[in-house]
């Protein structure tokens, strides 16, 4: 009896899979739509190839251009902004949830430390942190210092992210999570299945802002990439490149620009062009997602209601 039912269920499932893959009379199946989308994507890629090439090349460093393995993704710049951002969002969300949901001894003390870390300028801690990484032999122009600080919740403005998440998770009714726990979800599962999906707005906010902060940061980047001592790195950010560009440009033209005013103006134009290029990706991001950016402050409940 049971066996035959299983068999029927299996047949049903088989039928269903077949329908999904090949489609029925009124609806195109998965394979059909896959082919259509594939064709569309490939053709659009061919259409956009020159434009994409232009954009991608313009973001690459000199080493990227020479390195044939870095074909499309400009390794250094985007990597430095994207990967730590993702780590930071996840860790900060966890910490914010931990503070909001649980009571544990010394919680108050840790909260005070959290707030102090937000309030005090990071310049006091920047140098010892640099030395920690130097002792670990990690100031070698790789992404490791950024990744480690982000994973340990100490990335750029991580504290602010934790406070946003803390605030957000506190607004979620505790009963919701308790209900999930009664239904048999463990603490970890309740976090992944209930808390994270509910914190969607906060995650969007923190991701967007972390990306912007990582993109714009120069002080700590210079430290962690070892700019003070030797500069032997392929990893860089557009903001650093902008400063470097400005310096090298000023050096190259300083001899005659001081005497000729019109060439000075030309220099300005080129410097502004560099500035525009450096912030162009952020501008595009902003105009595409401006609603999320602007409404984020309200949604994340920073206003203290």
């Amino acid at each position, binding site marked *: 009896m049971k066996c035959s039912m299983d068999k029927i269920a299996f047949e049903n499932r088989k039928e269903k899979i077949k329908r999904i893959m090949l489609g029925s009379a009124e609806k195109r199946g998965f394979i059909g739509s896959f082919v259509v989308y594939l064709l569309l994507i490939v053709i659009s890629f061919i259409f956009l190839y020159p434009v994409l090439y232009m954009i991608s090349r313009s973001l690459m460093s000199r080493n990227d251009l020479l390195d044939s393995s870095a074909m499309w993704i400009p390794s250094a710049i985007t990597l430095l902004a994207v990967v730590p951002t993702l780590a930071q969002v996840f*860790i*900060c969300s*966890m*910490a914010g949830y*931990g*503070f909001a949901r*649980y*009571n*544990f*001894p010394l919680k108050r003390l840790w*909260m005070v*430390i*959290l*707030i*102090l870390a*937000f*309030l*005090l*300028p*990071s*310049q*006091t*801690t920047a140098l*010892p*942190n640099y030395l*920690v990484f130097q*002792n670990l032999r990690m100031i070698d122009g790789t992404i490791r210092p950024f990744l480690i*600080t982000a994973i*340990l*919740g*100490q990335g750029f403005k*991580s504290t602010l992210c*934790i406070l946003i998440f803390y605030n957000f998770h506190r607004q979620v009714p505790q009963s919701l999570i308790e209900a999930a726990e009664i239904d048999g979800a463990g*603490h970890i599962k309740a976090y992944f299945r209930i808390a994270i999906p509910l914190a969607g707005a906060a995650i969007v906010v923190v991701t967007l802002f972390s990306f912007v902060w990582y993109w*714009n*940061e*120069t*002080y700590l980047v210079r430290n962690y990439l070892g700019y*003070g001592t030797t500069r032997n790195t392929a990893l860089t950010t557009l*903001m*650093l490149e*902008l*400063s470097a560009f*400005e310096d090298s440009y000023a050096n190259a033209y300083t001899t005659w620009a001081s005497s000729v005013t019109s060439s000075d103006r030309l220099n300005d134009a080129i*410097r502004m062009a560099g*500035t525009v290029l*450096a*912030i162009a990706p952020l501008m595009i*991001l*902003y105009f595409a997602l*401006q*609603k999320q*950016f*602007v409404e984020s*402050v*309200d949604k994340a409940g*920073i*206003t*203290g*209601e």
Partner: protein
Amino acid sequence: MSKQKRNPHDKRRLTKRTLREWGFGYLFIAPWIVGVSIFFLYAMVQSLRFSFSRVELSNGVILHPLENGIFENFVKVFTTDVNFPGILANFGVGLVLQLPVIIAFSLIIALLLNSKIRCRSLFRMIFFLPVIIATGPVMSQLTAQGVSSVPMVSQNALLSVLDGLPEFIYTPINNLFSSLIMILWNSGIQILIFLAGLQKVSRTLYEAAKIDGASGWESFWKITLPTVKPLILLNAVYTVVTLATGGSNEIIELIYTATYTATQGYSYAMAMSWIYTLVVAVILIAVFLLLREKSDKHVVYEQKRIDDKTKMAGRKKA
């Protein structure tokens, strides 16, 4: 489960549950605790030690005790450095001057945006834009180009009135006017925070006040301002923190260069940054004391509500 049924008043079960809760609480914040211990607490202690000793760099960091008194580095900052005291004073006075400008400006903009207007989201987008692009290198580029102030203001005779003032007051005020746009650029988040607060005031309150004969001016002071008062504190703290840690800050640049200058070095830079931290902390405390809610003005239950609100706001953002 069966254990629970047998002995519902067992205290050990309760402690076990609480312990579990503690454990998971710590599990969730564990990465942060490790990070904050190494990169904040330990780093703070280290930088304090650096600032009170002479650092020698030879195959690692060696700390020597100071010969000329324990505060040698701090004294050196004020006696030998030609730039630092002046820049620090400028920063302090500038911050104190900029703070009310930013707060007042963002409140006005938020009030304007909160009134019935078309294209509100467009304007909101424009006012928020600087948050995205206002970064150290870009700001310094724009300042170098002279687009940081409104031409009419800086060319106006307004500044000549101030000529008689002593230098230490004149310079910050001059800076305030000559980089007005850059200062206003720092108010994006603040505008949105005020706006969010204002939108929570119900319109009926204003209508009731109007019926009772209150003018717009009066209802601003009696309704709007009390509502946004906790947000003023929040915004003030936020403004101080962003201005103090922001990229276009001369002191930060000074500390950075001092770190890698042979004659000054680590301990000197750390002494500098501690002085800076103290100045910022003093400003923060002053802001907090000035803007916190006074307790004698309200009835008790009202006070409790506001207290909770401030506490929350403080906890959230401060």
